[in-house]
């Protein structure tokens, strides 16, 4: 997971037209796409809207000049966890359908319904598209730029300061974790080494995690002291300078938002006419 953090950072530090866009533009597009897709009613209409949004995402991804493998890997780390939640939907009825038809009956009175399968697929489509836009945002925007963008868009000052510190110390502890790992390797300790007794490995792992906790506690104390030294108080906030968007960023944002809003509305109107 720690290496993933550094990999995300490396990707965000690359250069492309999408990387160079102001963070606010990317945040607005990502959230607009997510809101638009979530707002589409639970019907097969989601597939069409999802497919068009996914095409839009693919165009943007190609512009980032990042490998599709990066996207696939990141998606694969997220999908299994939420995929299970989505998978279990096939066993349950939900409020979006009035009639249910049994697709398969299982022992212990468990049934799989056609409608539930459809619902799970719709959910999966929505989930993948939403996550794809988040992956696009995180892979092309440096963390501090994302925070500055959010602060410029009105994120409360208290949150911005706390998130800023979180970003800073995420990397400090990332490096600390790396160093501890290197020390363990230097001393030929491998937690998966079956030649070493299980209890011993567990104990060493416990010590390592404990050390991390103690170090983070001590670090917290020292950081707080140095914050106090620099006048930290209730009114403290993260300093973010004003930065107007460029004309081409406004143009890109406007066109993207029009597209994101127009697609579901057009498909919805077409569906109404068909009926």
């Amino acid at each position, binding site marked *: 997971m720690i290496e993933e953090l550094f990999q995300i950072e490396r990707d965000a530090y690359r250069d492309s037209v999408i990387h160079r866009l102001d963070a606010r533009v990317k945040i607005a597009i990502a959230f607009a796409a997510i809101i638009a897709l979530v707002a589409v009613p639970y019907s097969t209409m989601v597939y069409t809207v999802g497919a068009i949004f996914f095409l839009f995402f693919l165009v943007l991804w190609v512009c980032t000049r990042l490998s599709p493998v990066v996207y696939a890997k990141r998606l694969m780390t997220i999908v299994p966890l939420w995929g299970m939640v989505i998978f279990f939907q096939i066993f349950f009825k939900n409020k979006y359908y009035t009639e249910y038809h049994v697709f398969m009956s299982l022992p212990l009175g468990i049934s799989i319904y056609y409608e539930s399968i459809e619902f799970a697929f719709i959910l999966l489509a929505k989930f993948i598209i939403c996550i794809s836009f988040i992956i696009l945002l995180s892979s092309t925007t*440096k*963390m*501090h730029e994302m*925070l500055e963008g959010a602060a410029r868009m009105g994120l409360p000052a208290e949150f911005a300061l706390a998130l*800023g*510190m979180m*970003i*800073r*110390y995420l*990397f*400090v502890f*990332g*490096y600390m974790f790396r160093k501890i790992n290197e020390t363990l390797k230097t001393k030929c300790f491998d937690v998966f080494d079956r030649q070493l007794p299980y209890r011993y490995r567990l104990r060493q792992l416990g010590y390592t995690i404990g050390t991390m906790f103690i170090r983070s506690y001590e*670090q917290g104390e*020292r*950081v707080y*002291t*140095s*914050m*106090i*030294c*620099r*006048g*930290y*108080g209730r*009114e*403290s*906030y*993260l*300093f*973010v*300078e*004003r930065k107007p968007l460029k004309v081409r960023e406004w143009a890109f944002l406007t066109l993207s938002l029009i597209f994101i809003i127009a697609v579901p509305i057009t498909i919805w109107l077409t569906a109404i006419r068909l009926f």
Partner: protein
Amino acid sequence: MHLIETRELCYVYPGKVAALNNINFIAPRNARIAVIGSNGAGKSTLFKHFNGIFKPTSGSVLIRGEPITKQNSKEIRKFVGIVFQNPDDQIFSPTVEQDIAFGPTNLGLDSQTIHHRVHEALKVVGIEHLASRVPHHLSGGEKKRVAIAGVIAMEPEVLVLDEPTAGLDPKGVADLNTFINSLAKKYGMTVIFSTHDVGLVPEIADYIYVMDKGRVVACGTVDEIFIQPDMLKSVRLDVPVIPKLLKSLKENGIEVSMAYTYTDAEESLLRAFGKRS
């Protein structure tokens, strides 16, 4: 009236660990003061009293003749800037620029003034090119400079540096020496720093406090302190190489005058060997 003065200052850590014992310390205006001592001598603990982070168990700390109270603590922290040993403890914002702006924002300045102060501080420590960088991409020396800039941006009159050379390469140490000297000469600041690198002291200090086990065991000018090798050895320190060498040459019959800095020693040796009149 002294900028900083401690009178019979004592401090006991929780668990009844005595850290400071009857410390009398004075920092006048535009002075360069070194606090030397081995590990655990109480140098960092003493520094934390200078801006009210620690409250004395007994005795007093006076800043410009006034004791530190809850009401004036913000003003005191603007007046006395402390740079800690580990820059990772002091750089807590996502970018260098934002970190340096942290102090000025807390002083309630407007964004234009903050911007000006940040860029002035970056210029003073020579890291304008690092403004938009993230701290974890910086080297140890660069982080140290960012930490100093963060304090400089608050425009303190006294700069306290805890082990400023720790973890720096020789070039970093040389740059820091020049910087500390410029603070006193160019900006009229009082600089107080701790170190156990005695070789560094004559280059950047006018006055020295020697600490051991929470006590000030000696204080005086560079000449007064480094003339006492036995005292320094008793507190696990040593005389710098240059005066040690000159003393040895003198004992072996070579007529050299005592010097503590590199430039003075060069002058003294050239004169002794007849290369300069």
